[in-house]
């Protein structure tokens, strides 16, 4: 008996289920890359056999953060930069949930950078999608941590003096066990990568290049992409950390030169997820913690029995 019968139920789900029936119209601008993320996620969930009520989608604040408004599932539209700590705790509380976190490049690599680093390090079993449009969309077009050097904006009128963040390199250095980049212009690949990421047992990070036609017309993500797995030019072992690091560095550098390299950059399927680690040290119960509150058979431990004796 489970109190959460949506979880792991036999169920043929389909894309429509993940579209809100009575929905708010997406308020994204026409041509916004964010639509592509929504579509890819709607396609990926049925492909991995999950139904809306076993998915928890936690988003940050930004145009990207509105994803949870337009995707039908349990949703938590949180605060700027904090989707990861909320999401990872939900996963610890109920490992049966399919937990996805999502937000923008400002949200994830700017204000939320520390959580990104530490969540990757801990290898929580979840998927993290960063809508990388190299701009602050929702606040109307300021320089973001991924904006290329020299990028002009209202707050950086003479052009940014900062080298952009290297999200893939940083992800690997932090400890993510699955790292990929895809692009809104590449819907088929995007959905495939999302499927892999969701199925991956560990922290899967997807840097999702999304164009922002409203504030970042010149961004290089508009140009055609190259799939590094498909291209003959790039031959590297996605499970080899060093080769992956080189490939990432190259992709990050080339992005601002106008060449968009996408695909899988790193995958380590052997590293145990944080939940596994914690269960193995006895720091986490074997059964989903959330179930405990609905299980009449649980004997609730009492301080009086377990702990008072040491004070007498």
């Amino acid at each position, binding site marked *: 008996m489970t*109190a959460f019968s949506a979880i792991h139920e036999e169920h043929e789900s389909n894309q429509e289920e993940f579209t809100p029936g009575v929905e708010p119209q997406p308020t994204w601008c026409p041509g916004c890359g964010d639509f592509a993320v929504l579509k890819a996620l709607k396609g990926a969930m049925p492909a991995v056999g999950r139904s809306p009520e076993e998915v928890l989608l936690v988003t940050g604040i930004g145009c990207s953060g509105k994803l949870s408004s337009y995707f039908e599932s349990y949703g938590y539209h949180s605060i700027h930069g904090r989707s990861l700590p909320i999401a990872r705790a939900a996963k610890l509380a109920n490992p049966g949930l399919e937990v996805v976190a999502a937000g923008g490049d400002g949200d994830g690599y700017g204000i939320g950078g520390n959580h990104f680093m530490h969540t990757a390090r801990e290898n929580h079993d979840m998927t993290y999608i960063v809508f990388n449009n190299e701009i602050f969309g929702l606040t109307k077009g300021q320089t973001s941590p991924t904006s290329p050097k020299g990028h002009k904006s209202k707050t950086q009128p003479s052009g940014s003096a900062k080298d952009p963040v290297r999200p893939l390199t940083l992800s690997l250095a932090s400890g993510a066990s699955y790292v990929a980049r895809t692009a809104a212009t590449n819907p088929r690949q995007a959905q495939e990568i999302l499927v892999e990421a969701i199925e991956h047992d560990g922290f899967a990070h997807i840097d999702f290049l999304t164009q922002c036609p409203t504030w970042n017309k010149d961004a290089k993500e508009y140009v055609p992409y190259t799939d590094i797995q498909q291209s003959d030019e790039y031959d590297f072992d996605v499970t080899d950390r060093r080769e992956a690091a080189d490939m990432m560095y190259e992709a990050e550098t080339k992005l601002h030169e106008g060449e968009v390299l996408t695909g899988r950059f790193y995958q380590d399927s052997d590293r145990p997820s944080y939940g596994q680690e914690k269960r193995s040290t006895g720091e986490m119960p074997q059964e989903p913690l959330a179930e*405990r509150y609905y299980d009449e058979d649980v004997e609730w431990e009492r301080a009086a029995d377990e702990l008072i004796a040491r004070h007498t």
Partner: protein
Amino acid sequence: MTQGGLKWRVSGGSGDGIDSTSQNFAKALMRAGLHVFTHRHYPSRIRGGHTYVEVRAQSTEVRSRGDGFNFLLALGDSFARNPDDEAYYGDEKLKPLYEHFDDLNEGGIIVYDTGVISEEEAQAVGLDEHAEENNWHVYPIDLRSIAREYGRDVMRNTAGVGVTAALVGIDTSYFEELIQEVMPGEMAEANIKTLQAAYEHAQELDQGHDIEVPEGEHDGEQALMSGSDAIAYASLDAGCRFISGYPMTPWTSAFTVMSQHLPNFGGISEQVEDEIAAAALALGASHAGVKSMSGSSGGGFALMSEPLGLAEMTETPVVLLEAMRAGPSTGMPTKSEQADLEFVLYTSQGDSCRVVFAPGNIQEAYEQTRQAFEYAYDYHLPAIIVYDQKLGGEMRNVPVDFFDREPDPDPGAVLTEDELAEAAHDAAGKFKRYAHDAEDGVNPRSVPGQKGGRFLATGNESMEVGHIAESPENRVIQMDRRMEKLDVIRADLDEGDSSNQTYHGPADAEYGILTWGSQQDTVFEAVDRLEARGSDVKALGVSDLMPYPEDEVRSFLESVEECLVVEMNATAQFRGLTQKELGQFGPRMTSLLKYDGEPFEPGEIVDGFEATIEDQEHPGGNMKIVPAAGD
């Protein structure tokens, strides 16, 4: 026997085992049938700093550490370094002796370890003059040699306990028993030998003092508990099975207790990257169905401001602890203060919608922590326990059967899948988690993974199923609904059999003393003394800060001519809150404030009362008086 029972202070370097020594000392006296109370001084350094612990013991309930102390066991700081570098801090090694001269009562006892502090050194810092002036009884004893003879140097604290037992008449069997319980055989043996040798040595001495431990007997078995223990145990009993945090003094104590025991209670503890994450994790776990908590002190709690507001808006239940210390900023991190009241009530943008309790003592800490979980989970809001270094760290005996309670596995206002099937949904099957017409303002929630419970939780203002909304009409309905919860909780608190506010003294007294949180029992002790001296005074200790107990405090203030408001901060925050909430009575209230990092002693409150309400002069000391408003 002097009036106050034994007030024993053991001082030494913070590596000298002061902590365990004093804890065992207190426990032994408790087992011997006495009421005990400990106070620990924390220097803001790790080791080698001078520190002390006090143990007060008497045959009746102990409400505070009292005024000063009457027995000093000065071990001297055996970790002190740089003896040449006295310019700034003085001689660290001798501080455990001479820094205590100020507070030792008339007629008190000093035992010091001549193995560390020579008699010449003691003279040099003025021991003799002080002793003569104050009629102290001084016993220089080479504790180190005794320890060395029967065990090892470090057992000189045990030797000190043996000497104490002999001087004030405690049966050493209680100590021996404890030593055997906590130490392995050989070490226990050496300690016991040391204890006995020291005891015998001291019995031989020529004793001129009149301090003696009284007889006492408890009705039932007692436990020696700290406020932090009580809060942690209450959380476990309340069904909390998730904590996330980041260390910070003094919150670390409760966090550590939880972390050590949660795995055995089937729960999860997470030490994370910072306090923003800590609060956010607690929300995530709670949203996913687990009763969760987090907490911090001062600056760490400041970092929780934004997630705290998110909990209010998304109506995610959570319990947060805030363990105050002297501010602003890093301030005096190991010192007590009550200056975070307004901060905790109002931090985070927008109108506050949270429950805040400030327990007045260890039992209240247990009770109110359990209440915090109940209200948080029944009403879907953050509930905060605000306490301080003093309450968190002090230990008192509490009857063991006080803890004999039912655990609370109730997840609060949550629906089962069967109930969800019957609940209100929108046309497309989304659950109306935030329905407008909720009873008492609360909609029982669904939990991710449940069938039929899909909704969006958002920090934006939202419609019934959670979609972001900006319509003014929806806004007003949702705000009113959320705020209604506080009114309902207030009514619920007022209706209960017992109030969280604690009264002391004759109901018809002419004067009042109002206080909040950890100063309560000290105030009560002061009231007893004032009464004994003929003052007509009563006191009220307030714990409910939000929603504020308007009726109770109004009645109290209406019933007195004048009222002294006692609190540990510089801007009279609780008095301000009271004026804010009641809109009057300013002219009836005078503040007695202290913000030097040390809690009030009951004698200071007695003096403060006399100086203000009874119109005598300034009480002296580090206190400040703020006269009545509108005068």
